[in-house]
């Protein structure tokens, strides 16, 4: 309860800014303690790199009835996957819907490899997602908002501004109006997803952006949307557009 009180006090005492995008854009790691930033920058000690290694192995492993591996279609992952993560979520015309990176990987898994979809938050899906995202490390986000994706984007924007949960707060109250301020020993971030999948110490493993979004719902004492739900996908797309120009830093390291 005292945490709820702290949040309410903080929000009541601050005016809600109307601007759409925080300026200047700051990455999630900019708000992390020095130890987390150091770990994220250390390609060996960053524990998330274990999943990058696992993803690299899975990339070459044949799966499903097709007996094909990712590498059979996308020969040179470092080249073929370079910049891919900067463009997701996106409307994928073959699939006829907006897909995030996990959705695209599972689209390939089911349609191309003829294998059952990988479960959200399974080590396999996290490993492949992280491995693909890693190939865009340092590249600026450039999600293309075409007509087909726009309704999903607008849904995400609406959700981002909508109050929810027992704390009755919207994403904007923390990540738009109060970023940079303190909540206990945490510094409130701008709420970008560019470090995900990220290794979060609270999870003691790597997790997807959707897991992080669900954690925010939980923190607000709101009902958490299911993994892969329309709401979380819409928020992901909104966040992707909102972070335009910010460098992909996946896999990040977070408290």
């Amino acid at each position: 309860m005292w945490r709820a009180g702290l949040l309410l006090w903080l929000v009541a005492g601050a005016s809600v800014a109307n601007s759409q995008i925080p300026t200047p854009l700051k990455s999630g790691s900019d708000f992390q303690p020095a130890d987390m930033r150091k770990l994220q920058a250390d390609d060996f000690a960053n524990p998330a790199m274990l999943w990058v290694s696992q993803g690299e192995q899975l990339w070459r492993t044949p799966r499903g009835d097709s007996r094909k591996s990712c590498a059979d279609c996308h020969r040179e992952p470092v080249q073929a996957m370079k910049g891919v993560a900067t463009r997701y979520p996106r409307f994928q015309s073959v699939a006829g819907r907006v897909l995030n990176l996990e959705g695209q990987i599972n689209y390939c898994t089911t349609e191309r490899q003829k294998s059952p979809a990988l479960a959200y938050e399974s080590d396999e899906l996290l490993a492949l997602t992280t491995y693909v995202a890693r190939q865009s490390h340092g590249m600026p986000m450039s999600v293309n908002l075409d007509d087909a994706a726009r309704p999903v984007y607008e849904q995400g924007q609406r959700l981002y501004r909508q109050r929810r949960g027992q704390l009755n707060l919207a994403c904007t109250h923390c990540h738009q109006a109060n970023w940079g301020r303190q909540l206990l020993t945490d510094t409130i971030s701008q709420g970008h997803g560019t470090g995900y999948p990220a290794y979060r110490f609270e999870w003691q493993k790597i997790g997807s952006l959707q897991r992080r979004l669900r954690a925010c719902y939980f923190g607000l004492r709101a009902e958490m949307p299911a993994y892969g739900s329309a709401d979380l996908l819409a928020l992901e797309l909104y966040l992707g557009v909102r972070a335009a120009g910010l460098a992909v830093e996946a896999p990040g390291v977070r408290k």
Partner: protein
Amino acid sequence: MKSLQTRRRRVLGLIAGTALLPLVAKSGGAIIAADNDLPALIKRLSGNAKLTEGGIRLTIPELADTGFSVPVSIDVESAMSGSDIVKSIHLIAPRNPRPLVASIALSPLMARASWTTRIRLGGSQEVMAIAVMADGSARAGRADVVVSISACIDGT
């Protein structure tokens, strides 16, 4: 509501896992207490030798960002050759449900009597390292750590 309650239980479970609250004693007191005889543990690890302070350094942040993973280094002053050899080092976090974090037997193949890892801390406490030397003597190093917790509860 039901799902929120089970998640709350999970959050409490997470906390119990690192023994942040006195609550823990109610749910798992017997198990935890069994391992919690600190003087006996120290006696056993040091082989009954009298502990001398100094000659060993415990490097750990004064303020840990999270109790889930705290970087810690143990460095013992030793040539690691001839008779000046560290036989074993032990790391103890007295407020953890299981205070003995690690016991490491060293050999002279080490360049230095130094070992670094990342540990869980169930709350603010004085962490302790013991080094047992080849001559049977034992040294103790201590460091106070304040462990901060996250402002937002994560029940995922």
